[in-house]
């Protein structure tokens, strides 16, 4: 038994330990530079959007990977973080050329799946062995929440469904390849996981959920109508709490990913924004 036979730990590492400050700063600087150039009219808004996607999601994933490696006491393959950012950037850039190019974003989760199979992401709750029941439970919960969103939005605000499966799928590809994967890896796999190993579940879930809400509130891609913002805050709060519970319950990030993918599929089905 650990309590009897292993040395008691001294102080744990700080909450922000192992943050790749230089890399995140570089991404932030690139984004700021692109925004400045866009202000001067030298860069198109679509290019700025691609840079923003790369910087924001790439930055979140970079921090998540480094924190996860530290918590799981695993080693990432050399350049793994840069490859992840590059894949996100490639997908975002391809989408600038052609909306169908966003399919390239799926290479990022594929790369992360490869790292998962190598056992490099256990610190994020992504282990090589998958328990399917929690994943199905996550998908079911995400689906229920998505269905509620569809029902509520159509009943209350009168939103219609988006026409065309291709359009829905291309939007969802962004969620699968960048939006959900970066949010779940950082806010649940890295932040919540790090906090729950220091504090209680409630405290960790509250901080992770608040951070999630902040991330979406400042997201320029989220429609700014009051009812949409209020709805987003409500559903994202519930989704984040559910995802935190799923990770706490199962020890795996996959159920939360499944829940979020299902919810965002429902969200993309609505003709919002």
């Amino acid at each position: 038994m650990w309590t009897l036979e292993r040395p008691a730990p001294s102080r744990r590492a700080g909450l922000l330990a192992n943050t790749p400050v230089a890399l995140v700063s570089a991404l932030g600087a690139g984004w700021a530079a692109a925004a400045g150039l866009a202000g001067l009219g030298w860069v198109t808004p679509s290019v700025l959007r691609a840079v923003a996607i790369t910087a924001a999601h790439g930055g979140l994933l970079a921090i998540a990977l480094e924190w996860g490696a530290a918590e799981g006491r695993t080693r990432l393959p050399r350049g793994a973080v840069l490859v992840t950012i590059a894949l996100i950037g490639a997908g975002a850039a391809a989408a600038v050329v052609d909306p169908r190019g966003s399919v390239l974003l799926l290479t990022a989760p594929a790369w992360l799946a490869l790292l998962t199979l190598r056992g490099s992401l256990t610190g994020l709750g992504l282990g090589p062995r998958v328990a399917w029941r929690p994943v199905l439970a996550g998908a079911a919960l995400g689906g229920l929440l998505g269905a509620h969103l569809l029902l509520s939005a159509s009943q209350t605000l009168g939103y219609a469904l988006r026409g065309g499966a291709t359009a829905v799928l291309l939007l969802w590809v962004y969620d699968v390849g960048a939006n959900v994967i970066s949010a779940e890896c950082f806010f649940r796999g890295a932040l919540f996981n790090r906090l729950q190993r220091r504090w209680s579940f409630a405290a960790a879930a509250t901080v992770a959920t608040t951070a999630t809400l902040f991330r979406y509130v400042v997201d320029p891609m989220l429609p700014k109508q009051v009812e949409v913002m209020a709805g987003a805050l409500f559903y994202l709060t519930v989704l984040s709490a559910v995802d935190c519970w799923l990770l706490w319950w199962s020890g795996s990030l996959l159920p939360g990913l499944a829940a979020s993918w299902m919810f965002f599929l429902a969200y993309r089905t609505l003709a919002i924004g």
Partner: protein
Amino acid sequence: MRDIVALAVSVLAVGVLSSRDGVEAMSLLRYLYFVPVIVAALRFGVFGGGVTAAATVLLQTPWIFAAIERGGLTPAATERVVTCIALLLVGMLVGRLASYAQAQRRRWRLLLAVQRALSEDAPLEVAVGRLRACLAVRLDVDDVALVVRGDDRLAIAGGVCVAEDSLAAEVLATGRPRYVPDVGGGARPRRAYAAPLLVGGAPIGVLAVEREGEMAAAERAALSTLAAHCGLALENARLASRQRRFAEELAERIASATATKSAFVAVASHELRTPLTALLGFSELLAQRRFDAAEVRHMAELMQHETERLVRIVDDFLDLSRLERGLEPKLSRAAVKVAPAVAAAVEVFRRTGSHRLVVECDETLPAVDADADALDRILKNLVGNAMKYSPAGSDVHVAARGADRAVEFSVRDVGRGIPAEALPRVFEPYYRAPGVGSARGAGLGLAVVKSLIDAHGGSVRLESAPGSGTRVTFVLPAVS
């Protein structure tokens, strides 16, 4: 699982009922919404109540918001909103109360189980093992261990050893509980908590638990209370066991003392009867028959000898009586010359001619500060014992020599000796070493000798080995 499915169906039913709920106020149907929430709260506590209430509210919101969208915040819509708030409150409050009641019930049952686990007398290791088994079954944790300080080592249940720098060792040393939110290495955080088993504020052990998942502050406080209770229960069990052992020992001693006293009465009666029989016989002969002067003189000497023996026995009884009342023998101390005292004591026995008495005593030895009669009795007791337990014709050495402001006397024989296991008890009253055979005696001599020497502030020791004889050495203070 069936409960969960039934609850899910009930919640969905609430959703369906809600979709059909009219806009009119005071729909009695809404009271039914509380049924699954209350059932879930009572069955699954605050988590079940909260989740079920949230689910029922979530299922109603599309219809409620649509109603508000259509007609504004009418009294009917307000009532439905209030119903939702009431559902949430009822779910949380009933759930919390149910969780609290369940936790309290579990705690009381656990305390009773702890008492039962320690109700039987058992060695510490066994008691700790039983207690740990009881806790492992009843505590909702993944692993539990108990460490308790024994007389000379730790009794550990639930682990192999206690490492020096471990959490348990730290708590055992400081007496303060310690919580580690994650011991590391697992997909889920594994919480560890170690609470001291306290008795009178001092740690006598540690209760350590580990669990994957939550371990709230209230639960840790309850574990600390449980640990304190376990400490007291273990200490009570230890004291009860000690008391039982003490009572058993006492009973054995009383039985032994009773047996010894009975044996003593028998021996003492015999010891008194022997000289009395001799006195009675000789006095009857003198009264009934005529003897010549030499025969009368011989009979008178025998009668005197038996009378002296009677006096010695009675003196021993009196001294022993004083000893048992915690009183020292009465002494009349003066400067007693050693050589004449030794010679006088030995002379009585020399006349019997049964043993060769060898006296080594320097005339120049300083006088001892002693009661002359007491010294005489000490020497006679020791020389008499030496002769009694050594073969006829063998040597008995009586010696005295000067020591540091004292005189050391020794009486040595070459008799059968005393077994090693009997040596610690030879100075106890009534005690007779095994294998003394038919040798006469009440087991009082050495006890009286020791009490007399102690009363002088001296010391006595006995060395003996079976087959090689016995040496008794005693020291009395010299006159300064």
